[in-house]
C-alpha cells in the first residue's frame, strides 16, 4: 500500500466521501425513474388520432415503452425492429390505418445488431415474435459513419443482456457481454439526463395527446418560459406541456410509428449531412466477420420461429461519390460473407429528396416504396 502523510489521508477521505455521496445521489435518482416498461402501456388503447408523447423520456425509457408492449401483448403480423431511423414507418405504408394487430414499429433508440439480436431472442423466448414477418433495420453505414451497426449503445435494459450472458457458452463472448452490461448501467446511472428527468418527470397520465385533448391553448407562463427551462419545469403544467407543438410530435401512435407534423413537407434537407471523417468512423477492418455473424444469428431466430425475416438497409440523402466510402466498403464485405441472408439494400436510393424526411430519416413515400418491394418479393403473402 502507498505511504501517505496525514494531511493527504484527510484530503483523500474527504474527496472519496464527497464523491461517494454524489454517486449515491445519482443512483437514488436513477432508481426512482419510472421504467415505462412494467406495467406495460397498451398501445391498442390509443385511438386513431391519439398518440403517446415521449418528450422528456430517456432513450431507454422511450424504447422500454415499446419493449413492455412487445413483452406483454400479442404480437402483430408484421413487426419492424431497428432504431430511430425507421421511426416513421407505419401501417399506412402497407395501405392500412394504424393497427397494432397488423403492424407494429418496435424501433428502439440507437440499437445496433448485437442488441437487436438480444432483443429478438428475448421476444422469441416469450413467444412474442410477429406471426408473419420481422423486418430488421440495420443502420446505414453512411448514416452515422459506421456507428450503431456492430458497436453497442447503452440503451437496452440490462436484464435482456443478462439473458444472453447466461446462455453464452464462450467465455470471451460472455466477458464481452458482461463488460457491455456494466458500461450500459454506468452510463445510465451517471447521466445528467437521468438525474434531471428523475426530478421532473411525470407519469404516463398526461402524455396521451390528440387534436381534441390539445384544443386548449397552453398557459401563457409555459409559452414564455425560456426553452432551456421548459423541459425541466414544463411537466408541472400537465397535459398542456405535452400538447405544445414542439413536444407533441415526439410521440408514438397506436402502431408504434412516429407521426409527421401535419402539413410538414421534407424538413430542410442537408445532403451529405454527416461528413464521414475517416478518423471518426466506427467500422473497422475485421468488422465484416462480426456483421456476417450477427446477420446469420438474427436470421436464424426467424427460421426457428417459422416466420419470414428480412433485413433492411435504408438510404441516406447523399451524393453518388459517397457510395465508395470506407464504411460502405466494409459493410459490403460483411454482407458478401453472408449471401444467404435476405437483405433489402436501398442505399442506392440516396438521391431523391422526396424519399427523405431529413438526411437520415426516410419519408412516408419511401416506406410505400418499401412496402411495394416487400409485397413483390412475397414477404407479405
Amino acid at each position, binding site marked *: 500500500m*502507498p505511504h501517505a502523510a496525514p494531511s493527504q489521508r484527510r*484530503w*483523500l477521505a474527504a*474527496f472519496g466521501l464527497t464523491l461517494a455521496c454524489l454517486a449515491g445521489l*445519482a443512483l437514488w435518482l436513477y432508481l426512482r425513474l419510472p421504467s415505462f416498461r412494467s406495467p406495460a402501456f397498451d398501445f391498442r388503447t390509443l385511438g386513431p388520432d391519439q398518440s403517446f408523447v415521449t418528450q422528456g423520456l430517456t432513450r431507454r425509457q422511450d424504447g422500454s415503452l415499446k419493449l413492455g408492449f412487445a413483452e406483454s401483448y400479442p404480437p402483430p403480423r408484421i413487426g419492424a425492429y431497428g432504431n430511430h431511423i425507421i421511426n416513421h414507418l407505419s401501417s399506412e405504408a402497407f395501405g392500412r390505418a394504424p393497427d397494432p394487430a397488423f403492424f407494429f414499429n418496435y424501433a428502439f433508440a440507437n440499437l445496433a445488431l448485437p442488441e437487436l439480436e438480444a432483443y429478438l431472442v428475448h421476444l422469441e423466448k416469450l413467444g412474442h415474435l410477429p406471426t408473419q414477418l420481422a423486418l430488421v433495420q440495420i443502420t446505414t453505414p453512411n448514416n452515422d459513419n459506421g456507428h450503431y451497426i456492430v458497436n453497442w449503445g447503452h440503451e437496452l435494459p440490462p436484464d435482456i443482456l443478462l439473458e444472453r450472458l447466461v446462455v453464452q457458452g464462450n467465455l470471451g463472448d460472455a466477458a464481452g457481454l458482461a463488460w457491455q452490461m456494466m458500461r450500459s448501467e*454506468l*452510463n445510465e446511472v451517471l447521466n445528467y439526463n437521468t438525474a434531471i428527468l428523475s426530478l421532473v418527470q411525470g407519469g404516463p397520465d398526461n402524455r396521451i395527446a390528440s387534436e381534441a385533448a390539445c384544443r386548449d391553448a397552453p398557459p401563457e407562463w409555459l409559452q414564455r418560459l425560456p426553452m432551456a427551462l421548459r423541459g425541466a419545469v414544463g411537466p408541472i403544467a400537465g397535459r398542456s406541456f405535452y400538447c405544445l407543438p414542439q413536444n407533441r410530435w415526439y410521440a408514438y401512435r397506436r402502431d408504434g410509428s412516429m407521426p409527421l407534423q401535419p402539413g410538414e413537407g421534407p424538413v430542410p434537407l442537408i445532403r451529405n449531412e454527416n461528413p464521414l471523417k475517416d478518423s471518426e468512423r466506427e467500422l473497422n477492418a475485421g468488422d465484416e466477420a462480426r456483421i456476417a455473424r450477427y446477420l446469420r444469428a438474427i436470421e436464424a431466430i426467424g427460421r426457428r420461429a417459422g416466420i419470414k425475416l428480412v433485413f433492411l438497409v435504408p438510404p441516406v440523402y447523399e451524393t453518388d461519390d459517397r457510395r465508395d466510402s470506407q464504411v460502405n466498403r466494409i459493410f459490403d464485405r460483411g454482407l458478401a460473407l453472408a449471401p444467404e441472408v435476405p437483405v433489402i439494400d436501398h442505399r442506392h436510393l440516396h438521391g431523391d429528396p422526396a424519399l427523405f424526411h431529413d438526411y437520415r430519416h426516410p419519408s412516408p413515400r419511401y416506406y410505400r416504396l418499401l412496402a411495394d418491394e416487400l409485397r413483390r418479393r412475397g414477404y407479405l403473402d
Partner: protein
Amino acid sequence: MNFNSLEFLVLFLPATLLVFYAVPRHLRLWVLVGASLVFYGVSGPEVLLAFVIAIAWGYATAFLLQRWPKALALVMAVSVPAFTLVMFKYLGFILDSVQAGPDMRAHFSFFLGILLPAGISFYTFEIVSYSIDVADGKIPPERDALRFAGFATFFPHLIAGPIMRYADLRDQLRALQETERLEPHLASGLRLLAIGLFFKIFVADISGSLAAKATGLAAGEALALDRLVQVAFWSMQIYYDFWAYSVMAIGLGRLFCVELPVNFREPYLSANPREFWQRWHITLSYWLRDYVYIRMGGREAYVRNILIVFALVGLWHGAGWNFVAWGVYHGALVILYHVTRPAWDRLPHAVSVALTFTLVSFGWPLFFLSLGDYWAFLRDLATLPWGVEQFGLRHLLFLAAIGLVTFGVREKVWLDIEPPLGRLEQRRLLGSPVLAAALMFAGMLCISLSKTFIYFRF
C-alpha cells in the same frame, strides 16, 4: 479507451490502481504494462499487434546500434515504426494526392480498412527518439524489456502525449520496481484529473459544439462576426481539449508515482510566434528541434529549416493538405517574427500577446476545414456584413468567461501542476477535496456530452 469515459474512470482506473499498489514491487511494472495493453487493446487486435511489434522492434534493434554501422542500424531501427506510421496514417493521403484509382487502392485495402490507430504518431516518435538517443550514445540500450515496455506503453501518455524521452522515464520506472513503499501524491493527481475532465467537457467540448453551430451554414445564415466568434471558439476548443488531456495525463502519472512533463505553459499568453511554440505542445517542439531542426543545420539555413520543420509539424498533426498548410502558416509566422523582431519586440506586451493570439487563432480553422473551405471562410469574413446572427448573448458571455480564465488568471494561482506539489491543498477553496470531487462528479454526470479528444487521432 478514452480518459473521458465512465468505463475508464469508474472501472479501469480504480481497478488498475488497486492492483498496482497491492502487488509486490517487482510486479508493479507488469501490472502497468498489462493494464496499458488492455487500455490500448480495446481499440482492436490489429492496432494492438502493430503497437506491440513497434515496441518489440524498437527494443531489439537498439542492440544493433552498438554493433552495426550507425547509419545502417538507425535506418533499420526506424524503418518498421516509420513504415507502420506511413501505412496507417498517410497512405490514404498519399493515394488521394496521386489520384490513385480503385485498382491501386485495392492493393492497399487491408491498411485502408483499419482505422488510424490511436496515438500512433506519439508512440512512433517516442520509439524513434529512443533509437536515435541510443545511436548517439546518449543512453545505453535498455536490457530490461519490461522497463522498455513500461516506457512505451504507460497509458497516461500513450494516446496523446506528452511525447516522452526514455531518459525521462527510465529512473522513475526503475524506482517503481525497486522502491518498497511508494509515496504518490494522490491528492494532486486526483485534483488534476478532476480539473482536466471538467475543462474537457465544459470548456473544450461546449466550445467545439458552439463552433460547429456555425459550420456548413448556407449563404446569408452567418455574418462576419459569427465567423470571428467561431474562430475564437475553435481556438478555445483546441487548446482546452489538448490542455485538458495533458493535465489529466500528468494527474494520472502522479497516481502511479510517475511525473510526466508539462506540455503547455499558458501558450495564449505568448508575445510572439516563436515563444508560442516554446509554450504549446512543448514536448513535440523539443522533439522536432532535437531530432530534425538541429540535424538539418539549425540556424545555418534558418528559413528553409523552419519551413521544413513546420511542414512536418503540420503533417504530424494530420494527413491532409490543410494540415500541411497549417504547419507552413506557423512556419511563416515564426519567420515573420524573425524578420521583424526588433519592431515586434518593441510593441507593448498586451498588443504583442493579442497579435500572436490572433495570428495563431486564424490558423486553427485549418484543423476543421479543407483548403477550399478555408478560403471560403476567409472570404466570408472579408465580404459578409458586420454583425452576429448565429451567436447570442449567452454564447458571448461564455466565451468571455473562458477568455477571462485564459488571459486573466495565471495557472500557478489555481492549477498546481508543477512541483513542488501540495501547495494548493493548503488553500481552503481551490485546494478543497470537496471542490475536486464535485468537479469530477459534474464531469462524469455529463460525460455523454463529451467528444473524443482531438489529439487521439494524431
